[in-house]
Structure formats: C-alpha cells, structure tokens
C-alpha cells in the first residue's frame, strides 16, 4: 500500500490537495481537501443586502458573474420582485459569456496540459512527460489552438465587460435588473465577438475534444461514478422565471426527478468546522471554522441530497436536458463541457435578437426589512445556491453552496466519499512518480479554487510518496 499526496494540485482555480491510497497500481482510497479558508458567509453578516452581488462575486474569479446572478436572484426572491424583460436577457448574456470564457479556458489552459506535449518553456515545464499519445501534427495543432484559446477567452471576457463594466467581477448584474442599455453599438460589438468565439468552438474546440477522446478512449472507463447528479437550472427563459433553458433536476441512479431543497444537508464531520456547523440545511446553516479539529481534512463542507453525494456541471445539465447520456466518465465530462459551450454560444446569438434597445433595464425596489430569499442557478461547475435572510434591513444570515462543494466534498457524517473521491477509486496509476491519471480525472470536474486533494495508496508497508 502506498500513499501519494499531490499538493498543490494546480490548474484548479487556485490550488487544492489530494491524497490517494494505491494498491496493486490501483487507487483504493482518496481524500480531497480544500486547503484555504476565507469565510465569506461570516463577512456578509450585517451588510446591506444589495452589496451581496458585488461581494459574493469575489468568491471566485472565474465564475464571478454567476455569484452575482445567484445573489441577485436571492434578493429579488426576498423582495418579491421580477427584473424587466430586457434585464433578464442582458444578464443571461453576461453569464453566458462568462461560461464561454470558463469552458474555453478550462479545456485548453487547465485540462489539455495533462495530455499534450507542450513548448519547452515555463510555466509548461517542468511537467509530467508520460502518456502523451497524440501524433505530433495533431499535438502541435492543439498547442496552436491553446494559444488561440487565450485570445478567444479574452474576447469572451470582453463581452462580459461590454455589458458589465469589467471582468472578472462585472457590475452589470444587480437585484432589480441590469445596467447597460442594449444600444445598437453595444449589441453589434457583442455579436461580433460572440461570432468569433462561436467559430472557434465550432471549428477547433469540438474537433479537438473528439481527437482527444479518440486517443484516450480508456478515459471513457476512468473516473466513472454512479449517475447521481444535481442541477438547479441555468438561464431563466423569461423574467417570470418559470422555466430555464437548461432545466434543473436531481438525478438519482440515473432517474431524473424534481429537486427538493429541503433534502439538502451540509455535513461537516470531516471538515474543519465546529460540530454545530453540520449537518444542516443551508437555510439554517452555520460556518464556525475550527482548524484544530481532529479527523478533519478539508475546508470544504460535504453537501448531500437525501444523504447522497451528487455531482454537478455540464454533464449533469446535459444529462437532465436529455442531450448527453452516454456515461459519467472523465472523457464524458470533457465532451459535455465542450458541447455545452457550443449550445450556450448558439442560444446567445438568438437572445441578442430579442433585446429592445429602448426597453427598461432596471426597476427600483425597496429592500425588505425582514425577509428570506433563495437564489439558485447553474454555474460553470454545477449547482450554485445562495440562501439569504434579512433582518432589520441587513443580512442576518447568508449561506452559499458552491458547485465545487458538491463535487470536491470530503467524506460526510456517514463516512461516504464525495463525488471526486468516488471517481478516483479504481483508476490505475501506471507510474507513481508521475501519477498523471489523478489530475486528469479530477480536472474533468473543473474543480474550483477552494479545493485540496490527498491521494493515498494502501497495502503494507505504508510508504509515502509526496508528489
């Protein structure tokens, strides 16, 4: 039995750590941990509820607009208001552009590094040299596309800036609506950039991911787990929000059902939080950090749905929508992300046609003295929820469950592993000095910053390898 620890695990939106236990060249146990704590939920207490959109965007530099959206939905829910029709479209365009930015950056800058032979220059060296299978011509084309992806993802963020003022952390999504009128010049600029991004997705990204899938077809077997998934729904179809373009749902053993928020509980048995922090429903959540806690190994809580660890992300969204149900492996996740980028880009082109240049974009409203609200959306990596309680006009309670909390969670109170931990079990480790398989599986979930994973190999005697 051997234990392999990877810390930092890079290319995961800030670093995380993984510890796996390997026996007979196979992973038999895994622990994923978040290795830093910031405490947003505590910082938000006492603040003006309107500030939550801009403050919570700063949880994450790569999915900031989705936090802005979730916070805005939560306050609109608490205030009992709906945004203007135009604003819903503008907000969908901002978060759509941010999703395109993420999906392009994730595939080319975070994921492909594990599969390509890269130019001999920092920060691409040092890196693992094993198991790079693409023939040279295909490899080099993909490297060129990687550089192109830098430009394309920049363009996607420029689209966010056009309607939001800047990116990351756009100002254009607020409870009450949006802030940049869709004037002809703005829409024209946005559309031109969108078409360039869509052409790249169509002409390079989709074929690249299938070339990769051909060369690494064994990754359709690796990183699988039971089809247990969650999505809250992404992109409200109208300002009334009765339907979403990517509908929500819970998938339990492959069966899709409506989700029920009351079945969510965040466990903290193995997380660095005091006992009172869990298990609790987020509407009544607590965040009391306790780094010295015994037997804990992560800053991430363990959200569970009816006690089941659910995975979120493009695969879950396309599964629920009925667009992709081939499998739940590493390669399935990567393909689903790419196909989702293609679908989102196409939808955005149609939304541009629905904007009314002179239409209302923002409706003023009163912040309620005492109220509760929930803001739910799909984000790049899966279901994102903000739970808000207002007392005396100020935030009395704020709980956030991020997609990576679902995906990268540690064990729960029943000692059940989180989704990434599950996916790592059984994968082969060909060379424990270059355990490239681990990062490939983990990165297929598009793990976000607050993560840390430990990898351990079991058997006797125990030998530790620090990777």
């Amino acid at each position, binding site marked *: 039995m051997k234990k392999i*620890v*990877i*810390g*930092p*695990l*890079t*290319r995961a*939106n*800030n*670093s995380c*750590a993984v510890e796996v236990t390997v026996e007979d060249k196979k992973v038999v146990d895994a622990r994923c941990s978040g*290795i*830093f*704590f*910031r*405490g947003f939920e*505590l*910082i938000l207490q006492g603040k*003006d509820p*309107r*500030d939550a959109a*801009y*403050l919570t965007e*700063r949880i*994450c*530099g*790569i999915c900031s607009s989705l936090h802005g959206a979730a916070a805005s939905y939560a306050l609109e829910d608490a205030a009992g208001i709906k945004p203007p029709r135009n604003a819903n479209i503008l907000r969908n365009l901002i978060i759509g552009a941010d999703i395109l930015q993420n999906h392009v950056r994730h595939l080319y*800058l*975070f994921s492909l*590094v594990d599969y390509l032979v*890269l130019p001999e*220059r*920092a*920060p691409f060296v*040092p*890196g693992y040299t094993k198991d790079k299978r693409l023939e040279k011509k295909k490899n080099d084309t993909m490297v060129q596309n990687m*550089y192109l992806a*830098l*430009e394309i993802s*920049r363009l996607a*963020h420029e689209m966010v800036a*056009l309607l*939001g*003022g*800047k990116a*990351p*952390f756009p*100002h*254009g999504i*607020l409870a009450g609506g949006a*802030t*940049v009128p869709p004037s002809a010049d703005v829409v024209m*600029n946005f559309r031109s950039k969108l078409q360039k991004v869509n052409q790249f997705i169509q002409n390079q990204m989709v074929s690249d991911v299938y070339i990769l899938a051909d060369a690494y077809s064994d990754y359709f077997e690796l990183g699988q787990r039971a089809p247990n998934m969650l999505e809250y729904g992404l992109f409200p179809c109208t300002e009334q929000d009765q339907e979403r373009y990517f509908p929500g749902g819970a998938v339990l053993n492959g069966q899709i059902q409506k989700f029920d928020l009351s079945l969510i509980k965040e466990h903290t048995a193995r997380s660095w939080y005091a006992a009172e922090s869990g298990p609790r429903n987020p509407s009544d959540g607590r965040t009391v*950090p306790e*780094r010295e806690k015994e037997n804990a190994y992560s800053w991430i809580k363990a959200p569970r749905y009816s006690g089941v660890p659910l995975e979120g992300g493009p695969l879950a969204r396309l599964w629920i929508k009925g667009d992709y149900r081939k499998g739940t492996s590493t390669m399935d996740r990567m393909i689903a992300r790419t196909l989702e980028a293609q679908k989102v880009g196409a939808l955005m082109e149609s939304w541009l046609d629905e904007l009314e240049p002179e239409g209302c974009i*923002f409706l*003023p409203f009163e912040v309620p003295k005492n109220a509760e609200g929930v803001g739910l959306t799909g984000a790049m990596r899966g279901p994102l929820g903000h739970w808000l309680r207002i007392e005396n006009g100020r935030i009395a309670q704020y709980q956030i469950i991020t997609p990576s909390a679902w995906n990268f969670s540690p064990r729960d109170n029943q000692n059940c592993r989180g989704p990434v931990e599950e996916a790592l079990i059984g994968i082969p480790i060909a060379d424990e000095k270059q355990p490239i398989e681990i*990062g490939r599986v983990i990165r297929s979930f598009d793990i976000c910053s607050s993560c840390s994973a430990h990898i351990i190999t079991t058997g006797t005697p125990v030998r530790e390898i*620090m*990777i």
Partner: protein
Amino acid sequence: MVNEDVPAKPLIIWLGTNTCAGDMLSLLNAKDPGYQELISSIAELRFDYLLGASEGSDAINVLDDLQKNHKAAYILVVEGSIPTRSNGLYSVIGYRNGKAWTALQAVRELGAEARYVVAAGTCAAFGGIYAAAPNPSKCVSLQAVLDRKVINVPGCPINPEWMMGTLNHLIQYGEPALDDYSRPKLFYGETIHNLCQRRDYFDNSIFAAKPGEPWCMYKIGCKGPVTYADCPVRQWNGEHLSWPVKANTPCIGCASPEFPDGDVPFFEHLPDIKLPGIKVTANRVGLLTGVVTALGIGAHLMGSILTGRLAETLKKDLPGGSKLKIRPRLKKGHK
C-alpha cells in the same frame, strides 16, 4: 506566433495565497502584450499557481530552486491575502518535505530572496475582502508580514495593464515612482472622480437616481472621490471597452486600502460634508467647485484621514488638514 528561441529573460514567480484567482484571470485578459508574449518574449514565468503544468512536489521544487539558486534574480508576485490564524494554516501553498507549507511561510521565505516583491490585487496589497470584519482567517496584507518593500498594485481585480505595466517598468527601468501606499503613481496618481467622464454632471448636480442611468453616480454610492486609480481613462479589460461608471453603476472603491469595509454600503453615498466651517449636503455638493470637490467628500473622508487611509496630498487640501495626524499604515523602515 512569437519566436520560440529566446535568450534568458527575467524570472517571475506568481504565487496564489488566499485568493479567488481573479487577478491571474484578469492578467489573462491582457492584450498587447498578452499572456503568450509575457511567457515567450518578456519573461520566464517559472511558477504560475494557476496555469503551471507542474503539480505537487515538482511545483514546490521549482520554488525551492528559485529561492536557493536565483537569489535577487526573480520578481515575486503574490496574489491574495496572507492568513495568520492558526500559524497560517488557513492558507496552504502545498506540501514541502511532507509538511503543510503555509502561505505565511512561503511569502516570507521567497520574499526574502526576491529582487522585487509585487502585491497583485487589493487582497495582497491591503488585505482586501477576506480581511473584512470579522476577518475570519485573520488575514493581512503582504507588506504586513515582510520586512522589505512591497510594490502594491491594488484593484479587485487588477486591471491587466496595471500589472503588465508595473512588471515592464521593473524589467526595463527598475522601480517605478511610488506613492505613500507604495502604489505606482503611473496608475494610481489621481482619483477616479477627477478623471471621470461624468465629472461635469457632478459639478452641475446632475445625479443618477438608480443604477442604469447615464448621469453622475455619486448619489447612488460612487466611491470615485476617494479612490485612486485610472479606470476612467484606461478602462477595462484588454480592449479598454468599459468600466463600472460607464456601465452605469457606482465605483465601489475596489482599489482602495479600505476596501470593502470603508466602501460599504456600495449604494449609499458618502456622508454629507460636516467639516469645521463647512456644511454641505450631497444635494448641493455638486454646485461647489475648487477645494471641496478636489478633496473628496465628507465625514467618511475625515475618518479615513484620521486612520491614515488617504494619501498625504489629499490631507493637505483639507481645512486644517496639515495638522491632522496620519497613522502610518505601512511598517516603518520600508521607504
């Protein structure tokens, strides 16, 4: 494509501590030069916590090598605040020799041997959002834990050109001229308010009543009068397309030392001026010109001066300002 065969170049470490990765992602939005040119023709980005290919001990070894074998040869860029709670265990860089290597230890060790140390973003420069009350991780700025000069490039996130420009200055010309907060004057020499395209609306009391309107944002919370940065003229991102006021929203002061506690509520305007001998309400403030508008607005400002959070030049413009004590925020001996 950029020439692949290039000679030895300046070495850069880009380290992430308690961060959301927003500053590196913003750097990826740089244009002319962009990230590709940064890594191919401008510098060697030996360590990039976000995009680096190496992981685990391979990544830690890169840092060890730079610290031991390239003393005074590398630029250390730190993104994120530095937690001090539980001996720094609220932010771990990775595992070194089997032990958690905290951000606190890493920046001290790497900072001691660096040629220059640069704080990227408001978190590293001033503590930023994670240091907001009640500061759950007890995090502080980079300067607060280093006994050497730190060049602060604040902003939440950094504008890509503030960072590219600072790096380029260090590489081409050495240290840029810095203000009292150790910020390059090149980018932070003037308030947003004074550079604002909508300044004329302020001076003529034409105020927006809600976000989304094309007038002065002062009355719905704009912190432009007390925020030093060139957003209005430079704009965002790489293409200089927009900035928060152009997007019809208030500046929230994200590049300020007091961000965010000194800037919230974001949508409430700065308190009315109640200085000795002056009493002006927000409704009338735009009618005043000269010293009052130049110095920024109100009791908030006064509080900021008393706590030493505003620049010296601003203080001098206040009535009796030269007598106000400024509590130095940077550790002594760094200038």
